[in-house]
């Protein structure tokens, strides 16, 4: 057994668009990501980075190849087994936050515990997660009553709920101003320093520079895979220290 959290070999994925147009989004991707890494996945649109993200997040299964997440082969799992993996092993952060508009921050954060884990002290755990991202005082607010940065922090708190192996962020700063972006990146970096694995899809070099490894996709394959020698520290870039974490 290798120590890799993610092991991908020869993954292919083809989408049907309409009646007889097919798009081969992934054409044999190989990738290994160890626990505790912070990886940026970059690439122009159509390069397959979003599809790779969906496969990594177990939202979609590849047509061919092998994907082992923490030693489990994912490709052959049923829908419900995939749902359980998403629930327990993966935390998602989306560009558009994807919070449920009718629930307040606390209830949004609670959501993964509604579908998994025991129901006990759901409230307490959700409150702790909210406090961790600096939003302890916003528990009763609805998403529409919060700024984009705050919403994204709620989303991060939600992603942390079941103590996942993997944090997956899809353009997490795409809808945020630069200050909020820095705050969000600072949170991700801090989480990574606590040895959580973070994978971030982005097309902004600025964002990628905060990661320790950058994987570039092109035409459905990994085109380039390099280490970042000195990642930028987002916490230093926030003009006035916001104390987002503590």
């Amino acid at each position, binding site marked *: 057994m290798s120590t890799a959290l993610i092991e991908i070999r020869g993954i292919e994925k083809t989408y049907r668009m309409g009646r007889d147009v097919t798009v081969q989004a992934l054409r044999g991707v190989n990738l290994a990501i160890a626990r505790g890494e912070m990886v940026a996945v970059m690439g122009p649109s159509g390069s397959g980075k979003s599809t790779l993200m969906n496969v990594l*997040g177990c939202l979609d299964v590849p047509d061919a190849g092998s994907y082992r997440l923490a030693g489990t082969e994912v490709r052959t799992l049923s*829908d*419900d087994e995939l749902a*359980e993996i998403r*629930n*327990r092993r993966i935390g998602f952060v989306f560009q558009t936050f*994807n919070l449920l508009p009718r629930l307040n921050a606390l209830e949004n954060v609670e959501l993964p515990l509604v*579908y*998994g884990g025991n129901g006990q002290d759901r409230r307490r755990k959700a409150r702790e997660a909210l406090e961790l991202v600096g939003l302890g005082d916003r528990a009763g607010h609805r998403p529409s009553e919060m700024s984009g940065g705050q919403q994204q922090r709620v989303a991060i708190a939600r992603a942390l709920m079941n103590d996942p192996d993997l944090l997956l962020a899809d353009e997490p700063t795409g809808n945020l101003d630069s200050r909020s972006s820095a705050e969000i990146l600072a949170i991700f970096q801090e989480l990574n320093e606590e040895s959580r694995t973070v994978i971030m899809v982005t097309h902004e070099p600025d964002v990628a520079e905060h990661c320790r490894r950058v994987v570039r996709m092109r035409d459905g394959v990994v085109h380039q895979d390099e280490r970042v020698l000195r990642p930028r520290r987002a916490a230093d870039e926030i003009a006035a220290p916001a104390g987002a974490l503590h």
Partner: protein
Amino acid sequence: MRLFDSFREGLRSIAVNKLRSSLTMLGVIIGVASVIAMVAVGTGASQQVQSTILSLGSNLITVTPQAVTQATLRGAGPQSQNLTLEDMGALQRELGDSIVAIQAEQQAGRWQLTASGTNWNSQVIGVTEQYPMVREWALASGSFFDESHVDGAQLVAVIGSTTASNLFGENDPIGQTMQLRQVAGGNRARILTFRVIGVLEPKGTTFGFSRDDLVLVPTTTAQRVLTGRTGAVNAIVIKAASSEAMAATTDLVRETLLVRHKIEDPESVDFLVQNQNDTLAALDSVTGTFTLLLGAIGGISLLVGGIGIMNIMLVSVHERTREIGIRKAVGARRRDILSQFLIEAMTLTGTGGLLGILLGWAITEAVKRVNASVPVAITPGTVAVAVGVSVAIGIIFGLYPAMRAARLHPIEALRYE
């Protein structure tokens, strides 16, 4: 996902779209209310028919003369002379103690009554001495006539409570006399003086007619003095020992009369034996059909309400595609999504069902207030069926939208704008 969470989600989404939810529910409310109200009317009518028939006395077997068709000649039916007091006597001997009571009736038509200057008009019926037992009709005062009154064709009468109060007012009618007069042919009036010996207990009205306005006289008196139809009776009424004994008693009555009337071909009988049980069963099936029909009309509106539920649930699933995607991304399984939407639909229809019961009850109460003669009856069974059906409609019409929601692919759902 715990059931409680599903319920909370269901209630929340109903609360968010208050107007839409209440309009959708209205369909179910009206449907359930109309089932309740319609079936209440049907059940009420059925109960009324049944109690009317039973109020004439229970376990009754009625023998009436029957028209006889021989070759091309057709007999006179109820007017014919083929059922007599002697037939009753023979049945009495034959049936003996196996029956509770027996009596023979002869209608004597309407007569003008006069007593101490007061006039009244009543139906006069000739009956025999066991009438109170057969009809389960006790006397309020005085006594009924006995065998000797019947044998002697005496001019005695037992009168209904309405007749008594109209003729005698506050005075005690027992022992008083009254005159019966009928305009016979030409201008000659016949006047007969009867002595009142008893007053019947009040029975109230059925189908709007008072049952307490009548004069009972001995059958023989009705035959010989009032109608001149000596010997013939309109009906022989037998009260069987029990409901179970009715079939056997009916057979025995038929055989006895066949022998007495010397009829060999059972096809050409000159009498008709009617069993009250059969009558009840026949009426039951009629009112049952009636109730079913009314229920079906209500059921159609309930069905329409159910389709409304399905429609709104489909819209709701469509609108919340993204929500479903988010829920799936954080680990909701198919059955979590399915149960969420099913419970939402069931909450809609269940609440609608309960409100519908209230509305249905209010409608039946209103009907009672407005017109007390319309019989209505809500039975626990009706309520149970209405609630069960409305929840079932939630399941049936909620299942398809919920399945569509559960089957959504997480990525497509998340991408949905």
